[in-house]
């Protein structure tokens, strides 16, 4: 690292290269750290997490009990031991709380004044963060599996909603009604995702094994249906035009929007070229997927070779995106992991699972230097680890 610093200072190295190298090194060193904790508020499984894109400081979580909690991730205390506290929450006694499990929460992409949440109670609610009241409610006929709002859109405020029905609905936040419907899938839509590169490209994944890319400005059908065989008929006829051999559970665009990752219940993850729809045939091996609803996985951002973090049973598997190599499995949860998000400012990973915990995976690179002064080390200790007995020989 010192070499990088001096090279950057002398102008021999691009400063961005140093930043990417250091980010990659930190991501490779992700592990559970006893100094970082997230306050446990949920009393049932955590289904979804989202970190706001502006400052990357606040995190929303949605649980199976309908509770939505807002956490502050920033460590403003001077201690290394820090619990991410819940700033506020929409609890069970809130008048507007969702009746059933919250499946997706998302911050408004441009500021933290608003967030949206969708749930199995067939609604999509738009919340005002400061007053914690619902600003708007969209009702649907079927349970809502997933929703997403475009992170780069400036010309439209459309929220794409995937429900149990085969139609993808686009709801307009400005007018408060569903503006249009995209038809093409035959079964429930398990995941939707807007492209981070173009504000009119939407990808949807459905239980009928198909992933479709749509241009929402066009009146006709979808742009591309992803085909795992790239049009070769030599593979099985049944898998013609399908992205996976089972339900497609999760979608994630890479941070530059050029590639799309999909996971399916056939225990495979595939990488697609998002402009041509071609299967890049990167082989990640078996990516166990038993989820009956959507699986929320995430891609790192700002590293020299991007990593994908996929919930794999009760662990999180980390792969390099473009070569398919498995880096490690992050073990720490007690039950199956449902969602994970990557905080790209500090290269941290937060994951929520059915055991009601949210774990923070922090890069651990250096051991803390031992302090000379003994009193200082004592104050650094977490009170839970302090001894209660005195070391003197006298009683009491």
């Amino acid at each position, binding site marked *: 690292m010192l070499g990088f610093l001096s090279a950057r200072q002398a102008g021999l190295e691009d400063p961005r290269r140093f930043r990417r*190298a250091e980010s990659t090194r930190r991501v490779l060193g992700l592990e559970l750290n006893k100094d970082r904790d997230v306050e446990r508020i949920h009393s049932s499984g955590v289904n979804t997490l989202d970190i706001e894109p502006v400052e990357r400081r606040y995190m929303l979580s949605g649980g199976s009990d309908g509770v939505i909690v807002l956490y502050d991730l920033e460590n403003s205390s001077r201690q290394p031991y820090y619990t991410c506290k819940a700033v506020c929450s929409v609890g069970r006694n809130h008048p507007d709380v969702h009746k059933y499990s919250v499946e997706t929460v998302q911050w408004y992409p441009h500021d933290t004044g608003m967030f949206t949440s969708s749930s199995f109670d067939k609604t999509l609610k738009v919340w005002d963060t400061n007053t914690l009241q619902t600003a708007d409610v969209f009702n649907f006929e079927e349970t809502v599996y997933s929703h997403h709002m475009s992170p780069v859109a400036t010309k439209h405020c459309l929220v794409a909603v995937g429900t149990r029905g085969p139609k993808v609905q686009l709801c307009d936040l400005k007018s408060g009604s569903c503006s249009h419907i995209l038809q093409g899938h035959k079964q429930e839509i398990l995941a939707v995702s807007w492209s981070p590169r173009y504000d009119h490209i939407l990808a949807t994944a459905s239980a009928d094994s198909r992933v479709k890319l749509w241009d929402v400005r066009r009146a006709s059908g979808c742009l591309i249906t992803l085909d795992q065989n790239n049009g*070769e008929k030599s593979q099985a*006829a049944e898998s013609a035009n399908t992205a996976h051999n089972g339900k497609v559970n999760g979608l994630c665009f890479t941070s530059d929007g050029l590639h799309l990752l999909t996971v399916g219940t056939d225990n495979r993850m595939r990488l697609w070229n998002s402009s041509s729809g071609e299967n890049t045939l990167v*082989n990640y091996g*078996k990516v166990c997927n038993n989820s009956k609803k959507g699986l929320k996985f995430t891609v790192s951002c700002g590293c*020299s070779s991007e990593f994908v973090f996929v919930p794999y049973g009760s662990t999180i598997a980390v792969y390099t995106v473009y070569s398919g190599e498995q880096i490690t499995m992050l073990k720490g949860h007690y039950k199956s992991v449902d969602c994970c998000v990557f905080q790209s400012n500090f290269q941290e990973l937060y994951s929520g699972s059915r055991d009601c915990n949210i774990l923070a995976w922090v890069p651990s690179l250096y051991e803390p230097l031992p302090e000379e002064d003994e009193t200082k080390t004592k104050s650094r200790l977490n009170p839970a680890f302090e001894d209660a007995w005195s070391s003197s020989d006298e009683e009491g």
Partner: protein
Amino acid sequence: MSQKRHRLVPQTLGLKRRRERGPVDADALRGESGSARAAVAELVRLFPRGLFEDALPPIALRSQVYSLVPDRTAADRQLKELQEQGEIRVIQLGFDLDAHGIIFTEDYTTRVLKACDGRPCAGAVQRFLASVLPACGDLSFQQDQMTQTFGFRDSEITHLVNAGVLTVRDVGSWWLAVPGAGRFIKYFVKGRQAVLGMVRKAKYREVLLSELLGRRAPAAVRLGLAYHVHDLIGAQLVDCISTTSGTVLRLPET
């Protein structure tokens, strides 16, 4: 948590690892690392020719290649290149959508010719091997491809199916097949279940690899323990964990 952190940007990062791990330990099975071609050649040596009286060409499986070449994407790419060059044929084995058998083309052609020698379908088979195989490297063939491009009549296609070279897949499409492969597939499926059962019955559902290979093969395993172990590792039906005593095969928890 795995302590094996792989270096992606090699020397520039200077990643400080907690525990220095050497390269993947080379024991009896994992000695090979390198090209898919060398892996297929080695696997083909493991195939028991005598069991089928030399009537079957030696078949390796794609999952076995994955166990010898750890980078799956590179292995896929190399196998595809070999397929395009015409050195190997990939056959769809019926029991699993992903299970592909890999055979060297010369082995395949010699065995097929020997199998259909003297039978009435010999002419059609020879024409097929001479004209279609070098031209089309796919796993399956379509009706229009066979009739228009290669000029096969329906009766000749029936001859090919009778000879065992083609298997019906759908109306108007056929898989490429190996005559007499049914026995191999039966032994393979039974043997795979038997070896998996050996790991399952072990205490803590894990077995030291060297100890497993040294055991007496149960009667259901006709193709050899090493053959099946490669397949299980590559298909990720067992987890391969390196320990201080060697490699341990453990059933995954899920």
